[in-house]
């Protein structure tokens, strides 16, 4: 048997509003609620609603043989609950079929692991709780923000009780080996790593509608043949969910492709769809996957350079990181939430200068004119958080002194 495992990442950031340096100390309202609602409505209309409907339909039509997995960030669930609860319900309906698995990640789609292990664990637990309360399930497989991965991250996640972890099918780690197998992770006792088959994933995610691509148009029967002829235990197709209808517009035929794919795959006797947890039960790991440094699924570099490469990104991140102990000491929930929202990886992605001149996927969903504008806006907000923190700490200390007296 060969498995096909679909996993979709669902996330929308809390975009910061235009926050001027003149606002520092005067306004603590950082987020652009109107813009967030606007983008959420658009992406719900173009992607989440039609794609969820389609997938639910496919699950029914195949008598539950079609299965998928999602990870849905806490900040995104919060936004949906507040603005579009009926869209959230369509996700709940999917999970209720029993054919849809929810993976865990950080609540804030954040760089928390790079802040500290404690902060990371806090955000993972927050997300566990959120998923339990929204979907009534407890996730067993973990996927870190943008598939950031290292041996150390995997070990931390295993200690928290997870059985499996998602990672990019990194060529430089795999060398001659195939991503279509399960691997052990170095430094873990029995956690298994599920690797993304990036060639086949990107055929859908990036190349699907690329003009001049030699395989265009990509049809479901052709793609199913590629899957059927893939060696190994499983083909892991990990995609941004927005691929359906937003990155690939309906005009490209992406929804028709999705409609026909399950039946085309299931025509092959040796093929089936599995969720990540099913893969863990079904297959043994065949070898060791050893990532001694931080890797990710972003860009061609597959490292952290989309978020933490240039001096601006580093300065901004060091500043946010340095606040941890003060924030924890103070224990003010609003400041804590603001601070964590500022850890969301998107904030750092907007400051990336790597591909800026070429203009590509980084520009998509980016509401800033340039990485420089993104940096200034972020630092203005951060300055206000720091100022609030300092003021509250002073007040706190004065309060303690008074009690002592």
């Amino acid at each position, binding site marked *: 048997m060969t498995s096909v495992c679909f996993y979709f990442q669902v996330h929308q950031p809390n975009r910061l509003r235009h926050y001027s340096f003149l606002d520092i100390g005067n306004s603590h309202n950082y987020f652009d609620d109107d813009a967030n609602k606007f983008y959420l409505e658009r992406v719900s209309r173009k992607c989440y609603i039609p794609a969820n409907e389609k997938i639910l339909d496919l699950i029914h039509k195949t008598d539950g043989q079609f299965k998928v997995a999602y990870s849905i960030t806490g900040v995104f669930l919060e936004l949906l609950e507040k603005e579009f609860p009926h869209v959230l319900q369509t996700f709940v309906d999917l999970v209720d079929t029993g054919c849809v698995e929810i993976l865990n990640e950080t609540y804030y789609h954040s760089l928390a692991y790079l802040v500290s292990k404690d902060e990371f664990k806090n955000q993972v637990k927050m997300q566990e709780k959120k998923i339990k309360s929204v979907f009534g399930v407890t996730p067993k497989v973990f996927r870190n923000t943008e598939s950031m991965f290292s041996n150390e991250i995997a070990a931390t996640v295993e200690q928290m009780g997870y059985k499996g972890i998602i990672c990019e099918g990194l060529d430089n780690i795999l060398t001659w080996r195939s991503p279509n197998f399960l691997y052990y992770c170095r430094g873990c006792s029995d956690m298994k790593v599920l690797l993304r088959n990036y060639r086949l994933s990107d055929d859908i995610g990036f190349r699907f509608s690329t003009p001049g691509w030699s395989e265009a148009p990509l049809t479901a029967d052709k793609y199913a043949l590629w899957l059927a002829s893939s060696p190994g235990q499983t083909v892991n197709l990990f995609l941004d969910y927005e691929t359906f209808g937003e990155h690939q517009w309906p005009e490209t035929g992406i929804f028709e492709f999705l409609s026909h794919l399950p039946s085309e795959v299931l025509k092959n006797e040796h093929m089936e769809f599995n969720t990540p947890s099913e893969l863990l039960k079904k297959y043994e790991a065949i070898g060791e996957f050893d990532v001694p440094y931080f890797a990710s699924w972003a860009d061609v570099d597959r490292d952290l350079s989309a978020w933490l490469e240039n001096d*601006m990104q580093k300065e901004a991140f060091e500043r946010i990181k340095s606040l941890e102990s003060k924030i924890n000491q103070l224990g003010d929930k609003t400041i804590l939430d603001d601070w964590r929202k500022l850890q969301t990886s998107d904030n750092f992605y907007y400051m990336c200068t790597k591909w800026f*001149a070429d203009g590509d996927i980084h520009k998509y969903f980016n509401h800033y004119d*340039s990485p*420089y*504008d993104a940096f200034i806006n972020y*630092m203005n907000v951060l300055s206000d958080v720091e100022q609030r923190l300092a003021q509250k700490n002073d007040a706190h200390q004065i309060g303690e002194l008074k009690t002592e007296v």
Partner: protein
Amino acid sequence: MNILMLGWEFPPLKTGGLGIHCYHVTKNLHAKNHHITFFIPRSSMDMHVDFVDIVQIPGCTLDPYVKMNSACNQVGENFAPGIDYFTESKKYADRVLEKASEKKFDVVHCHDWMTFEAGVKIKKKMKKPLVFTVHSTEFNRSGETYPNHKVYEIERKSMQEADAIIAVSNAVKDTLVNKYGIDHKKIRVIYNAVDHERFFKQQKNTMITCPTALFLGRLTIQKGAVFFLEAARKVAMKIPEAKFIIAGTGELFPELIQKSIDLGISKNVIFTGFVDDKLLAEVYKSADVYVMPSISEPFGITALEAMASKVPVIISKQSGVSEVITHCMKVDFWDTDKLADRMYGILKYASLKKTMACHGEFESRKFSWFDVAGQTEQVYARVLND
């Protein structure tokens, strides 16, 4: 090929992009084995260079922008006192025509309106193809408010006669199509460039240690120095030690001094007066951020000069150069809150300054005068083939 070029400024006598452009394009055309005769109104300056045959045309005074030693620079409705520009440009046209008939050339190439009528006369009499470069239109010079109708009419009529027109940006091209009714097919956009090495190798001025923002340009409505001052006031509220340099001279000089006093930032503002060519690179290097808040800017070579000097730039969205550069920040000239915010950010965060400076310097290398000359050559080839 032999090219007859008509201009009205050439370094060291220059006031803006036109002079810089003529200098570098003729130099690079010469390097490509073309021979250029350059007609220019007579002045007291020595104009000798070895790559172009400069012919000073006597008996007319054409100098529509700044007089080098004068604080007074008047354009649009209010030309410099005592000079009738229309009579002068007609006189120039007649003299040029006489001189041109003595010369051998394949194509005639004019720069901006003062030389356009002369170009048309030469084309008609000598049956040579006519190329115009539009560095600025009357709409730009008047800050998009009250264009001088006579100048507009000269521009419009002459441009209809031209065989090809070079515009220094798409914004200029759009103006030519939409405001002058010129056929878009005969317009080619060729962006200006920068003499990278000259600015890049300049040493940092270590005299000024406080955070410094720079404005550099003619002090006219068009260049928007007043927005720079308004933003400066807002920045100074947060960074009281910041300095704001206004480099250049022009009709608004007295007004801007008064404005800096009214805004209560006179101690933060430094007026340099006219910046000599020799000092130019050093002035850029003394700044932490260069601001070009022009109301209207056909191109804006200074932005490239600042980038080549490794100085971060903030430019108005209304500038031609904003069409082609990415490693800068772009604001609407009137949005002084946002301008102040961006200036504050660069002055405050070393990481931002460094990142912008590095990427900006690298990007500025894309703009070479050799390429501009090559593209100009293609325009000549096209009109000669038609």
